[in-house]
């Protein structure tokens, strides 16, 4: 028996508008671009929902109805769900419909799609809790499997997830870690006893996510039948083929005219054409199989670029100084007790902000430029820096305001 396990990531950040040095201390509406640019979050969400989320959801729903064996899973950032609630209720409802079939699992992550695990553990846990509450409220389910932002993974994270009660955790099935071993099995994260790691089959996943429309690729044009044959080739040397990708693959990264929707529509049929092949959710995979070996990742492993590290987010000085400084503000921001301020600060932790500041213009650079709503990485840094300075001022102001109050309080008590 061979399973196909599909996990789709749904995320849109709150992009910082062109926030200038003159805005610092004057206005704190960092995320409210209302122009025609790709910094206009409402506009981008509605565009992506129309081009990708809604048509793809319609196909998935149709597939769930047609094939009782079909399964899928999603991970939503809290910030994308918040934007759907605000700007596009219809799309949110179409996701709910999928989950209501009982055959679509939702995974756990940080509410703010942040890299907080590596910078501020307590803050990370608060964001995971905040995310769980949102998923319970919107979908009525509690996630059992954890996936970290950008699939960033270490032994330590697996250890944390086990203690936090998760049954499984997702990671990149990267050759440098696996060696001769295949990502088509479950693995035991080093230093854990109960939790299992599901590893992305990056070759097959990227055939869809990155190469599907590439005319220079030998596999172009890719049919569902051909792809199913590649999956079926794993019969006998694996349990599960884990296809992990951004949901925006369907309709946004690969446009409709590439045939991506037709591919999706025919994929389950083609996969199921081979006997002994089925679909499973991540939780079903965990129940069906046992781990065959240890998965040891002492250094951060991600699903990005050829390096599979965090260099797209923290590779240059601008990125490192920005991310370190946003976390350095944590104590002052939290102490303010100002919920709007705390929420703005958290939205500035979303990993995309740092990605936009990436200056790697190598082979991966084109991908970065494509996804960058700013003219240059430096423009991204400038707007972000200015917004962060405003956050610092707000926290400082709250601090000086609360002092006299505290003093009065303490004074009152001692009287």
């Amino acid at each position, binding site marked *: 028996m061979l399973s196909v396990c599909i996990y789709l990531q749904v995320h849109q950040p709150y992009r910082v508008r062109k926030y200038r040095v003159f805005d610092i201390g004057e206005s704190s509406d960092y995320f409210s671009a209302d122009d025609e640019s790709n910094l206009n979050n409402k506009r981008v969400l509605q565009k992506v929902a129309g081009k990708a989320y809604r048509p793809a959801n319609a196909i998935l729903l149709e597939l769930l109805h047609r094939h009782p064996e079909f399964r899928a899973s999603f991970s939503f950032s809290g910030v994308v769900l918040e934007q759907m609630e605000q700007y596009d209720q219809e799309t949110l409802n179409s996701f709910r419909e999928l989950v209501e079939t009982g055959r679509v699992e939702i995974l756990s992550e940080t509410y703010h799609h942040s890299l907080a695990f590596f910078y501020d553990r307590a803050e990370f846990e608060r964001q995971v809790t905040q995310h769980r509450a949102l998923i319970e409220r919107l979908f009525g389910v509690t996630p059992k499997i954890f996936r970290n932002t950008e699939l960033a993974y270490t032994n330590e994270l697996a250890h944390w997830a086990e203690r936090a009660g998760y049954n499984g955790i997702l990671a990149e099935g990267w050759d440098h870690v696996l060696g001769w071993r295949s990502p088509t099995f479950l693995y035991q994260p080093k230093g854990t006893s109960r939790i299992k790691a599901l590893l992305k089959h990056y070759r097959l996943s990227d055939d869809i996510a990155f190469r599907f429309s590439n005319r220079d690729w030998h596999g172009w044009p890719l049919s569902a039948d051909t792809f199913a044959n590649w999956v079926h080739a794993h019969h006998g040397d694996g349990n599960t083929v884990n296809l992990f990708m951004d949901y925006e693959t369907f309709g946004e990264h690969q446009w409709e005219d590439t045939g991506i929707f037709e591919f999706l529509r025919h994929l389950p049929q083609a996969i199921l054409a081979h006997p002994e092949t089925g679909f499973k959710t991540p939780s079903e995979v965990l129940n069906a199989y046992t781990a065959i070996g240890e998965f040891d990742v002492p250094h951060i492993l991600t699903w990005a670029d050829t390096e599979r590290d965090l260099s797209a987010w923290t590779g240059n000085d601008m990125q490192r100084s920005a991310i370190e400084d946003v976390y350095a503000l944590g104590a002052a921001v939290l102490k303010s007790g100002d919920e709007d301020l705390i929420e703005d600060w958290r939205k500035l932790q979303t990993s995309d902000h740092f990605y936009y500041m990436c200056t790697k213009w190598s082979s991966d650079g084109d991908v970065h430029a494509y996804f960058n709503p700013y*003219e240059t990485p430096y423009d991204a*840094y400038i707007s972000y820096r200015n917004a962060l300075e405003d956050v610092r001022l707000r926290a400082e102001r709250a601090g000086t305001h609360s002092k006299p109050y505290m003093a009065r309080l303490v004074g009152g008590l001692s009287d």
Partner: protein
Amino acid sequence: MFGWEFPPHNSGGLGVACQGLVQALADENSEVIFVLPRKISVEDARAQFRFAEGVELKVCSIDTLLAPYLTAGDYRLKVASHDDLYAADIFGEVRRYARAASKIALEESFDIIHAHDWLSFCAGVAAKETSGKPLVLHMHLPAVDQALGGYADPRVFAVEKDAMQKADAIIAISNRMRDVLIEKYDVYPDKIHVVHNGVAPDETAHLSPLAIKRDPRTRVALYLGRLTGHKGPDIFLHAAKIVAARNPHARFIVAGSGEMLPRLIDQAVYYGIADRVFFTGFVRGDEKNRLYKTADVFVMPSIAEPFGLVALEAASAGTPVIVSKQSGASEVMRHALSVDFWDVEEMANKICSIFSHAPLRQAMAREAGKEVKISTWKKAAQKCLNIYNAYIKQPRHTTA
């Protein structure tokens, strides 16, 4: 090649470009006969180059009052103090220059003619008519750009348009300029080839910043270019006023000479920043390079700028760069910040940000420095050679 005088005798980027291109062509083993107005001695010009063995640069000179960027008005002032060897107006002088060029074309042996900017275009056309050799025109600053969207001198425009029609190929120094030539001059698009300018390797490592940088809190923004309308030095001062109000450690350098200087000084006084703006006059060589070393940011606020070589020079010297979106340089510099020339607040925002954040300065300096290293004159010369080869109809020795 009909060109213009080199550093240290130049009055702007045109001379730098001629020097860079001629040197790189010589390095590619091309023989160049370089014709320039007599102002500097032939030996002096030759001394500017290093030559590989066997490679020849022949310099010819023509006695004329023509100089780069000269306007009809400038010429009238200039000719007044000379005897009647020279023509009474600039157009007469351009024709006189062309007659002399045609004589040189008869005497010399060559395969292709290459002329830089309108003052030498007539010479190029005359040489073509005399010799029958193909003509390549190299456009650095068309009259419509110099006129800043106002009325271009119709006589200059006519000379440019006529020459471009007669030429076999035209080199534009940016895509932006290519569009201008197609739109405003009706040039057939296939005739135009874009060759971006190059930049000489950085030779500033041994230089130290100016004394105004001794206080480590001081931040310096630099403008360097002719003080003339289309370069936007007044826009730079306007942004400076906004930056100065926010950053007490901000200083500004305005380097270059030009007719706007008195107005700019008044402007600085009027803004109340006279004590923070330094005017240097025309600079070249190590003086110029020390300014790049001193600056925390180089700003090129041009309203119209076919290319803007100084932006590449600054990046090459390791200075973060802000260029106007209306410049050709913005086409080749992905690691510069760009801004619309009219958006003075945004320009100030970017200057303030670069002043405040060391990681931004460092990342921009490093990445742009890497980027301009590949913008070499060698690359420009190779493109020119490809263009020459496409238009040279027969190999040289079989023509006789």
